[in-house]
Structures are given as C-alpha cells and as structure tokens.
C-alpha cells in the first residue's frame, strides 16, 4: 500500500532465505520485519516497528544457520545469504516455555478482560497451548493506588503487565515525553512515573501511545474499561477531524449502543504510522455529548424553539428567496467549514454560485492560511505543502518559523522528532520557548512581528557569503534582481537589533539552512496571522528558492494547515475568487465547463471574504448561511462581530452544538460530526482521505451534505445526490487536478495526493520537481513592516495568541473530553518570570489582560516560555476569549487578521487579587 518511506533510490537491498523462501529487503532491516514483508509472522511481544528493538521477551527467537544459539529476530539485522528458520518443533517448545513464564506473572483472567480477542499474549498462549499453571497460579497483588488512579484517560494494571517495556520505550523515544520508567526490580518491577507522581503532574502528553503499544491490557483506556471486549466492537477506519495532519485512526464502535468506545491506530497507517495525539486518542467524546443539537430550531418571538425539518426548510426557502429578490443575489453570503468534508464544501459553494448566484462564499482559511494560498500561489503557482509527511524523517536541516508542531500539529512534531533522532539539525525561529525550541541547535527568539527583518538579513548574509544556489536561481526562477537589490537595506546587525536577538545566531542559522542536504522550511500561523502575512509567506518562499531548497525529496516549503480540512475547503473553491481546483471563474473556458454541468450562469461580480461579510452585515449583506463555523468565537474583536450579526435580516447556522454564533441565528439546523457521515478530508500534505460513518447521528440530526441537498431544493433547485461519492465524481470531472481521484481509488490507495490528473496516476508526493507549477519560481522584494500596533506606555507588552496541545480551535469539540478537561480546563496567560516579578504577579494567580479593545481574566502561568516583553494566550476558551483582545486589522491581500501580535497590559485582579485556580498542570506545563 504505502511505498518505501525513504527515497527509493537511496536504498541497497539484501537477499536472504527465510523458511526456504527468498526474500529481498533494504539493508539494515531486522529479521522480524524482513519475515513480515514475506508474509511470515514471527511471534513477538516486545517488538513494535516504531520502537528501537528492546529484546526483552524472547518470543521472536529464530534459528540462523551458523549462529551460536537462538537469535532474537527483532534485534538482528539481515545479512546477504542468511538462512533463517522461524518455526519448528524446538522453537515451538521454547516459545511455549517462555509463555508459561510470562503467565506465571500475569493475571490471566481473559473472560473479564477488555483486550480479549486482540491480545498477543492470549493469541500466542492459545497457539502454543501454554499451561498458565505450570509455574504456579498467579494471584493479583497490586490493588493499591498508582499514578493512574486519578487519571481520567489511562489505567495501568500491574497485574496484567508482562514488563515488555514497549510503553516505556515508546514514551521515551517516539513521543519523547519521558514520562514512564520501570521502577523497582525483580518481581516488584512495575511501570511508573518519576516519584510515582500522578500522571497529569508529569511530562506525559496524554498521547495514548502507551495504551496502543501495550500487547496486553496492562495499559488501558479508562473510559473504555468494561465497555466492550475487542471482539464485541467493530473497527471503522477513518480520518481524524481535529488538525490538518490527517491521521488515520480506527474508531472502535459498539453498534448496539451506537457509541464509539475507544480510538486506536495501527502502525504503518499512511501519514501517522499508528501515532496519535491526545485529541485524536481521547478527544472523541463530543460526538456523544448530551449538548449535541438533535432537532432544528427556529427563532420565534426572540427565542430559539424546536421545529420540524419541514418548517425549518420552508422558512429558509422563503426568507432567502425574498431577500434575494429584494437585494439581489449578492445580498446573501455563505460561510463554509474547514471541518466539513470536501463534498460538503463543494455543495456550499455550488449553492452560492449556481443556486443563489453569488461569489459570496468563504471558509475560515481566511482567518489562518489564506496568506499561504495567496503568497505561495504567486511565488510557486500553488499554495500547499510541497512535501509529504513521510519525507520529514529524511530531512537534514529543519527550519521552523512561527510553528509549534509538537503542540499544534503533534504528528508532524513526532515525525520531526524522528528526523532529530536520525541526526537532523534543527533551527527554530519563535518568540516562545517551545519543545522544538528547547531541542534546537539554533533558537532565534525574535520579537513577534519581526519575521521579515530576520528573513531579509538571513538572505543577505547567504548572498554575501556566496551560499546562494546560483544555478537554481538562474534556471528555475525570475525577478531575482529587484529582490536582491531590496536586501541591500537589511544588515544582520540591524536585524539583530530589531528582532532582539544575537547577530551571530542569525548568521549561523543562515549558513546551516543554506548548507543542509537537504533543508526544508515548516511554518504555520506565526507567519500568516499578521497584517503582513502574505508578505511573510512570499519571503519564506524567497529563502527556499535562494538556496535551491525546494522541489526535491524532503526539501521545500511546508505550511502546516490548521484544521482537518482547511486544505480541502480551499481546494473545493469555498472562497470568493476561485472555483474548485483553484480555477478562475473569469476564465471563459472554465466558466463554460462549470455552467454546462451546473446548468446555471456563472455570477460575474466579485465575492466577499469573511471579514468583509461581517463588515457588510446589515448593510449590503442581508442574509448569511454559516455551516460548521463559530465566527463569534474565532473572529477578532468579538463585540463588534456580535453587533454586526445581530443586524442581519436572516442568519442560518448548520451546527453540531448551539455555538455562540448559532445563538444569534434565526434558524439552526442540527448536523453531524465526522463519525456520522461518509466523505473525504484533504490534509496538509494534499492527501485526500476517506471519512467513514461509524455511528448514527443523534435525534433528527442529518449529515451536512444531506442538509445542503434539502436546502438547495428549498431554494428551488433540487440536487438529488445519492451519496458523497457521487458528489466527488462531479467535482473531479470539473477539476483537472482531482480528475483521477474517486472514493473507490482513495480506498484502494490509502489516500491520494493531488495533483492526480488521471485514473492511472498514483498521486504526487512532492511538488515543483524540475518545474514550478507556475513555470518559473518568482522572487518578491519584501520590506519589513512593523506590526500595526506597537507597545505604548499604556499597553507596554506584546500579546500573542496560539494553540495548545490539549485543545483545539474555539474548544467546542476538544473541551467535551473529560480527559482533556482534566489536564487543561481554563484559560491562562504565559508571562515571563521577570515580567511577573515586576508586576508582583505570582504563578497561578488570576489576573486581568487588557488591550485597546477589551479585557479578560486568566490564570498567570509564570515561567520562561515567552520573552520578557511578550505575553501569550491560547484561543480555545470561548468564555474568556482571547479574541476579545486581538486586533482586527487585516492583511490587505487576504483579509487575515493580525492575531499574532497586539499591544497589551496586565494587572492584578482589583479586589480578590489573591484568588487562585485549582489545577496545577498549567504551571507545570509552563515551567517545564
């Protein structure tokens, strides 16, 4: 399914014989993996492909001709001509014996055990008919409290632990959280935390990896405890609905109770290789939340009241048609959702354009990565990650700017950790001391908003030192002269001054990046969420072109996308300027193609982006239809947004919860989560993957695509699609870049990466090889512009916002998880130790944060993660929203707001200034 993970050209192969069969594998492969590739499954308990061989269980012992004694297959590399026997009478006897020893220390009560049916110990004990009583009967010994007793997600049962070491090794080397160890020794040996501390007080990141690698039921999902044995549950492979990494996960479903019991993932899955983060593993409770909307609501006499679907649809049909008649098609607008499927995004923009007749359609990419789409399109010709996730491990110099992958995109973070273990160098440019910054070879802690100063100085240094790739610039790029001319104004010293960092660091970073073989750039919202976001993106592209670090295996420019399907929402044309597949509606040929299939004329006036929609609400814009997006919680300057929305004639929300936005609506339609419908998501690496229905929606809720078909009908233009696959076929037929993609082919290939122009195309791993999408790569001369709002005596600090590992976006999904809430349940603001001392603020104290726009209270997390001149807040908490504070100034090209920096002040709470909040974990988090 998944091809080699390394560039196939660099692999040498070795031929050996296993059980009489000739096997050819890459050099360095271990015997166990080699056998597996030939379909021979060597028994193993302490082996996992992601973890360095442990060699503790000895179940995998095999015979190797010429070797003394038996050989542990998991730890021995293949050699040319090797002769291996994996199974015979003697090996079977040995394995039976090993198992009997394990069982003498294992409380084998399979009849009451969750793992039954998916337990390797049980399987092997059966296969080799091991006698559990041969060395005496094991009686439970551990009934006291341990470090997981209070944890809501993880349960450790030492009586079921066979001390294989996989959880400890996984936590230490794959997740690199180093929360677990073996403690004590001999028959008292158990897995524990430092000092046996409560798991949530350690460096544990709740990734659930220890649960997923455990061969027995010693590490368990506590919330799934006794909620169904493995054999009672149905496995549904789907795509995670949180961030843009696009992890493949398996929902374990109890059909009878219509519940997702737990989530797991298998090694070897595309993109995530069986790894998940806390949100993927534990964050699914929102699906069965009692707060889900279960029936349509209509506003009557000022209050939202339950209604039937017929009533709701009739009202939508009549009101929207009236408004259209009165104010023209551009009096209506649609906001689509990066959380919904491609098919649904396609339908929203189709309704806007072909039914209503307006280009007023947008999605939340405006509030994050629109500068990426705009900037990279101008530089390279297409605005997406140029490389694939699996290439990260082969990168030699990772250049991160404004990206915090271990928290915002944890599985990208994990792949970067893998690259680091393989010797990659790391440069991190970030105002905060993130995990990656702490482990970096070079950390440039520049002032928020000084990115272009930094990048320009680096590039000037690269040119001055003769490190630029002349060949690449001449043969593949254009507009170099003006760009180089502009750099003359930027010296390393001036940049050091402006960014507040050491000049030597800038020089060293420039050299390291330029010389990497290869280097790759990764960035996220730290680059885009500025008033100069598009400029920032173009400058990042400049850097890559200048050094020829693009268009190669593991080398390029990689925007890490925020929401699960923000890539797809853009791909589907849920934005005013572009049709599906980034085609221009102004292009006559394109227009003709769409008009023929849609059977409607293409509107001819420019559409509005989200901030313009909000600005026009109640004026030119009279009606707004919002699918799966809580704009009140996510757009800057909240009070203003609420006012504008209230002034609309008609607001429809299609939602899973009664969000802050939905509370203002005239009609609310109950829709479904990713677990209740079929469709596709497109993740950051341009891979289109399947979303599969696992459970029935609650009450009368309907899949978003079904709702949209009904709405189209109510608006007088029925869209009788049978299923999402049929919708996909239509959009593929209209967009050359998706022409070779269909639900059937996605299932066959485990996802397809666009561009995929034809039925026999296997998808595109990395972009711009040999030629940029737009032909030549284009340099842009970028000037540094200071942030719109600089610190003043009244607001002397810089406030920056971002996300944490545990929560997601406005928190409406992630915060429903008890496991996540236990770890992080309230807003906080990170303050440098020295700054806090200056204000007399103690760690954990509740304080006030003010900007020119508003004030919120939050708990102070005092530490050294931020610069002394900066404070930082997450944006996940609607009740104390950071977006009350953020600046509603926008990037002129894409209308993305400057979430990343504004001027702010902090102060102690006036009266009850000493009030403390309970949870200790943020403090731990901020200072570690």
């Amino acid at each position: 399914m998944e091809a080699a993970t390394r560039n196939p050209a660099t692999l040498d192969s070795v031929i050996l014989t296993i059980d009489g069969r000739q096997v050819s594998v890459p050099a360095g492969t271990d015997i166990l993996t080699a056998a597996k590739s030939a379909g021979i499954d060597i028994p193993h308990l302490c082996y996992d492909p992601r973890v360095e061989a442990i060699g503790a269980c000895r179940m995998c012992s095999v015979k190797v001709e010429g070797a003394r004694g038996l050989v542990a297959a998991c730890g021995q590399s293949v050699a040319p001509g090797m002769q291996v026997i994996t199974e015979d009478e003697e090996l079977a006897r040995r394995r039976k014996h090993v198992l009997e020893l394990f069982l003498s220390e294992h409380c084998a009560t399979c009849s009451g055990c969750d793992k039954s049916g998916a337990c390797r110990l049980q399987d092997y004990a059966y296969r080799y008919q091991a006698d559990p009583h041969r060395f005496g009967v094991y009686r439970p010994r551990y009934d006291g409290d341990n470090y997981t007793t209070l944890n809501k997600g993880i349960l450790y049962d030492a009586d079921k632990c066979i001390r294989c070491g996989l959880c400890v090794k996984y936590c230490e080397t794959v997740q690199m959280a180093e929360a677990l160890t073996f403690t004590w020794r001999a028959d008292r040996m158990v897995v524990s935390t430092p000092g046996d501390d409560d798991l949530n007080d350690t460096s544990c990141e709740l990734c659930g990896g220890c649960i997923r690698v455990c061969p027995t039921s010693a590490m368990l999902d506590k919330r799934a405890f006794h909620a169904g044995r493995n054999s009672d549950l149905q496995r549904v492979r789907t795509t995670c609905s949180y961030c843009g990494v696009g992890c493949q996960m398996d929902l374990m479903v109890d059909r009878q109770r219509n519940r997702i019991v737990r989530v797991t993932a298998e090694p070897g899955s595309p993109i995530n290789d069986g790894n998940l983060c806390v949100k993927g593993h534990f964050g699914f409770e929102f699906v069965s939340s009692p707060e889900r909307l279960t029936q349509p609501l209509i506003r009557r006499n000022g209050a939202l009241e339950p209604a039937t679907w017929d009533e709701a649809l009739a009202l939508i049909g009549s009101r929207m048609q009236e408004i259209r008649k009165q104010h023209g098609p551009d009096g209506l607008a649609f906001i689509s959702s990066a959380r919904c499927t491609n098919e649904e995004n396609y339908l929203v923009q189709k309704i806007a354009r072909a039914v209503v007749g307006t280009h007023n359609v947008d999605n939340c990419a405006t509030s994050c990565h629109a500068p990426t789409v705009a900037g990279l399109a101008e530089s390279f010709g297409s605005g997406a990650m140029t490389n694939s996730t699996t290439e990260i491990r082969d990168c030699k110099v990772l250049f991160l700017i404004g990206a915090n992958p271990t928290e915002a995109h944890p599985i990208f973070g994990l792949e970067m950790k893998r690259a680091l273990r393989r010797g990659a160098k790391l440069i991190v440019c970030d105002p905060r001391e993130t995990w990656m910054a702490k482990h970096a070879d070079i950390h440039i802690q520049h002032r928020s908003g000084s990115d272009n100063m930094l990048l320009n100085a680096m590039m000037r240094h690269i040119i001055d030192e003769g490190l630029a790739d002349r060949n690449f610039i001449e043969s593949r790029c254009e507009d170099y002269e003006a760009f180089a001319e502009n750099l003359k104004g930027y010296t390393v010293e001036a940049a050091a001054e402006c960014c507040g960092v050491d000049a030597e660091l800038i020089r060293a970073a420039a050299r390291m990046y330029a010389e990497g073989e290869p280097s790759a750039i990764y960035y996220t919202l730290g680059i885009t969420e500025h008033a100069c976001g598009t400029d920032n993106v173009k400058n990042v592209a400049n850097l890559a072109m200048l050094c020829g670090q693009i268009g190669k295996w593991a080398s390029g420019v990689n925007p890490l996308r925020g929401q699960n399907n923000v890539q797809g929402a853009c791909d589907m044309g849920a934005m005013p300027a572009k049709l599906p597949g980034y085609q221009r509606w102004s292009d006559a040929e394109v227009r003709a193609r769409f008009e023929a299939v849609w059977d409607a004329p293409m509107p001819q006036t420019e559409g509005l982006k989200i901030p313009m929609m909000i600005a026009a609400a109640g004026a030119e814009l009279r009606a707004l239809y919002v699918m799966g997006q809580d704009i009140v919680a996510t757009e800057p300057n909240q009070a203003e947004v609420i006012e504008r929305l209230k002034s609309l004639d008609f607001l429809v929300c299609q939602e899973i919860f009664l969000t802050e936005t939905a509370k203002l609506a005239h009609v609310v339609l109950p829709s479904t989560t990713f677990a209740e419908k079929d469709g596709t998501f497109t993740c950051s690496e341009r891979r289109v993957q399947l979303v599969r229905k696992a459970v029935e929606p609650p009450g009368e809720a309907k899949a978003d695509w079904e709702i949209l078909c009904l709405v189209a009908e109510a608006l007088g233009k029925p869209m009788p699609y049978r299923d999402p696959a049929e919708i996909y076929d239509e959009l593929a037929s209209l967009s050359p870049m998706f022409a070779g993609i269909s639900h059937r082919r996605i299932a066959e290939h485990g996802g397809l990466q666009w561009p995929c122009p034809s039925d026999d195309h296997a998808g595109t791993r990395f972009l711009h090889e040999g030629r940029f999408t737009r032909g030549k790569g284009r340099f842009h001369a970028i000037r540094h512009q200071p942030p719109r709002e600089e610190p003043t005596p009244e607001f002397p600090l810089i406030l920056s916002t971002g996300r944490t590992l545990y929560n997601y976006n406005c928190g409406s999904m992630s915060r429903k998880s008890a496991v996540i809430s236990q770890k992080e349940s309230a807003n906080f603001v990170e303050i440098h130790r020295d700054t806090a001392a200056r204000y007399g603020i103690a760690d954990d104290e509740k304080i006030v944060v003010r900007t020119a726009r508003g004030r919120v209270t939050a708990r102070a997390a005092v530490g050294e993660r931020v610069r002394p001149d900066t404070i930082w807040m997450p944006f996940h908490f609607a009740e104390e929203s950071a977006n009350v504070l953020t600046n509603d100034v926008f990037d002129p090209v894409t209308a993305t707001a400057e979430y990343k920096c504004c001027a702010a002040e902090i102060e102690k709470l006036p009266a009850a200034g000493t009030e403390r909040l309970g949870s200790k974990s943020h403090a731990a988090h901020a200072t570690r």
Partner: protein
Amino acid sequence: MALSDALRAEFEELCTHYPERRAGLIPALHRCQDENGGWLTPEILEDLADFFGLAPVDVYGVASFYPMFRLRPVGEHVISVCHNISCALRGAEALLEHICERTGARPGLDGTSPDGRFTVLRVECQGACANAPMVEVHGEYHEDLDPAKVDRLLAELQSGAPARGAR
C-alpha cells in the same frame, strides 16, 4: 534547591573521571543520600536529573532499582538484615524477628520505628556468608550474630557510641 553548591562542585569534578557525564549519577546518589540523613527526597532526584542532563524518569528508575537507595525517610540507624540462603540457614528469620521486637521497626514499605531511631530492612546476600547471620549498620558488618550480640549492638547504637563492626 536541594543540591548545595559544594556538592555541585564535587560532582563536576566527579564527572571528569567518567567518559560520560551521566555515569556520575550513582556515586552522586550515594553522596546525596549520606548528606541527607540516609534517604533521597524527590527534590534531590529532580536536581540530580537537571545536573546530569537526564529526564526525571531516568533518575527515578535508577534510584528505585538499587536497594541501597532509599526514597523514604529513614531512622537514625538503618539496620540491613540479610535473609539470603546462608544467613537463612543460620537463623536469620528469628534474628530479624528479635531485632524487630527490640527496635519496634518492621521491614515493609515504611520500616521505621515510631520513635524514628531505627529502620530495619531485609537485604539479599552481602557476601559475608562464611560468618552468617549478619547485619549491616552505618557501613559496618556485624557477623556471627545471636540475640545477645544483637542486644549489645542495639545498646551501643542507643547510647550513641560508635558501633564498631566485627571485621
């Protein structure tokens, strides 16, 4: 901070004797335990992790693995009673019982007497089998023991006199 500057300086020097910095951990644990009245606090372990550039889990794994490191408060005198084969054959269990009765301490998770004077531990073979049964106190071996000899030893410890071993 649980690590004094003097200890830090000492450990810096210690590290120069090993090819890898982390190799100094075990001797450092011993020194800290001696300085801290016979046991290691969580703060000491955390500081040592920091000092050696190790994860706190690693230090805890090592400290809990070796029986000579104690992670709970101990009494003034720690009596390690060997219960391994030679000592067992020569009456170690009865001797242990006798010691427990006299001191009021009993081996277990918290093997310290209520008055805080004694901690009694069961330990494996100390390599003094020829002179079993034996106990070890303050680094000294007391061998060929019987109840009377134990009583004398305890009296000496009680009186604060330096209890000299048999060797």
